[in-house]
């Protein structure tokens, strides 16, 4: 996928949309938040990466996924109800 890079997994495409770098799926206009337009797998961090992930039950692993190809676009360590972290890149 060509375009202007704005993170390890996202680009701005020719329509000035934030897009998945792997498949080009558009996630909203450039300069805005994109996570709402992604799929979200929110599960306990406990066990997420193996047995040493002995995190407290309330600690969540958020995985933001591309609705187009399933690529993992970003992760967060979060408590339920905490807002998504928002990254805005102006290119």
């Amino acid at each position, binding site marked *: 996928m060509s375009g202007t*890079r*704005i*993170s*390890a*997994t996202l680009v701005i495409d020719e329509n000035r949309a934030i897009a998945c770098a792997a498949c080009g799926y558009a996630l909203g206009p450039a300069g805005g938040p994109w*996570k*709402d*337009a*992604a*799929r*979200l*797998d929110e599960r306990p*961090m406990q066990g*997420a*990466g*193996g*047995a*040493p*992930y*002995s*995190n*407290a039950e*309330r*600690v969540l*692993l958020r*995985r*933001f*996924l591309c*609705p187009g*190809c*399933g*690529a*993992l*676009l*970003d*992760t*967060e*360590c*979060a*408590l339920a109800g*905490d807002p*998504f*972290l*928002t*990254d*805005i*890149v*102006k*290119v």
Partner: protein
Amino acid sequence: MDPITFSIIRHRLFRVIDEAVITLKHVSGSAITNEGHDLMVSLYRADGSLLMGGVGFLHHLTSAAEACKAVIRRFEGDIGEGDVFLTNCPYTAALHTSDIYLVAPIHHEGRLVAWSACFVHVYDIGAMVPGGFSPESRDIFTEGFSSPGIRLVEGGTMRRDVMDTLLNMVRAPEMVALDLSSMIAANNVARERMVALIEKYGADPVDRACAALVDQSETLFRKRLRELPDGRWESRQYFDIEGETCKVLLAMTKEGDALTFDFTGSSPQSHHGINCTYWASWGGFFAPLFPLLCYDITWNDGVLRPIRMIAPEGSVVNCTRPAPVSLATVGAIQSVNNAACTCIAKMLSASESYAKEATAVWHGSHFAIFMFGLNQRRQEAIGILTETFGGAGGARTWADGIDVGGEIPNPIGRMANVETTEATFPVRYLFRRATPDTGGPGRWRGGNGIEFALVQHDSPEGGINYVVSGKGTEFSMSEGLGGGYAGAPCAYRWVHNNAAREAGRNVNPYPTSLDAMTGEAETISWGVFPLKGEDALYVRSDGGGGFGDPLEREPARVLADIEAGMVSEGVAASVYGVVTAAGAVDETATRERRKALREARLATPMAAE
């Protein structure tokens, strides 16, 4: 300024620092200074601004500048040749009371031309717990002596009354005396070398070279910032203390050639000593900023100029006196480091040309375990378990994080040999190794952390005590990047073998894993604990953050990790979607497994829902 002289002076300024660091290590002779490299020496201009930062614990480069400036304000008109000033007040400049700054003016022909400053983590500071880390302290007054500025050496002569007063307030005064002498010696060397430099090249040319060096850093740093995209990046760090959860929120904004670090939204200050003061937060984000953004730029005041910080008063990142701060260096400061590392890394990975400089967080917890008691030779032994300097590397955008590979804020720490620790503390290690599955999964995996266990051995008192000031047991503090998972959290277990023995069970004296231990493993994270009889302490440090999607990792790398014992087959299959059999990757099963995992992803709800 002619570029030749400039090049020579610049190189020589670095040598001045290096020479002072060697002096500091030589005279101090302590393990934390020599093994952990828990020290710093830097040079400052006449106004106290950073001229050249050395490679030490990097939080201190800017804080020592504040120490210089505080001394300049406090002693204005009364700063003499050969004076050395001490400050360790966290509300003035220091990070916590144990980290003492000695700052010394450098005069040439009667004129104050520069400052040198250094720090070491002193053996003891007279806080409620030996060594300084005091989980039970509730205010700065119980964290040992604290001076906003005092003249320790006057015109080259030690002020005996001041020294004696300080030493009167600490345990093991002879060790603290040695720490202080080492810093005085380091400042002396810095001064002598700096004066020699001025005498060779002239006061004026050196002054102009110094000014040019600061300007050059500013120019280069602003140029770098302009090459990076504008934007605003957020990160969030949680840490848990005794049921309390603190949050450090950071929004980093880059506009043109300026950067703003905004901590608005971070938790109010805690009643535990994990808070940090304003200047500690300021130093806290510079610690990753220098090596991540200025790896090829001289670390000085020029780098500070394009930067602004917003830290709400009364918060965990800018606490109000007399809030306790003795654990700041392993508490809020560490979270500031991590949050800044994540925001900077996100900014770097938004740039085609700088993405290779981005990294997930290294060793986010910076766990610290202090031991104190009598050793096998009946000497008083106080000290940190140096495994924390072992660390764990965060994944890069082009390579795995380094297993037990250190940390960013202290680029040249190292841990002691097992044999060194067993010779100085009455303990025996049961095992010490890199812990599989602790590095955050990703296209590039985070470095694994370390796990080890100790029992007492030949202790004249049947055991010793240790301080655990652990956060990062509930939360993962080493954030992942670009889809990589955060590293695994820390774990501390008190294994109750004594109780098992009393209950008539056979205690396994040589377990080589936590599972093989006999007694009940109680989770601990905060406070002072005994290591007595047959009881064991188990510690597992956090892993580094991962980078990118684990499903994108080459199966051959996953196989190599399995063979090296760094990743389990279970995680290989469930997280990486790699199936192996008989020492080889099962290509078909792997393809199917990854397809299934991807399909499961596509069945998750939209985030907006």
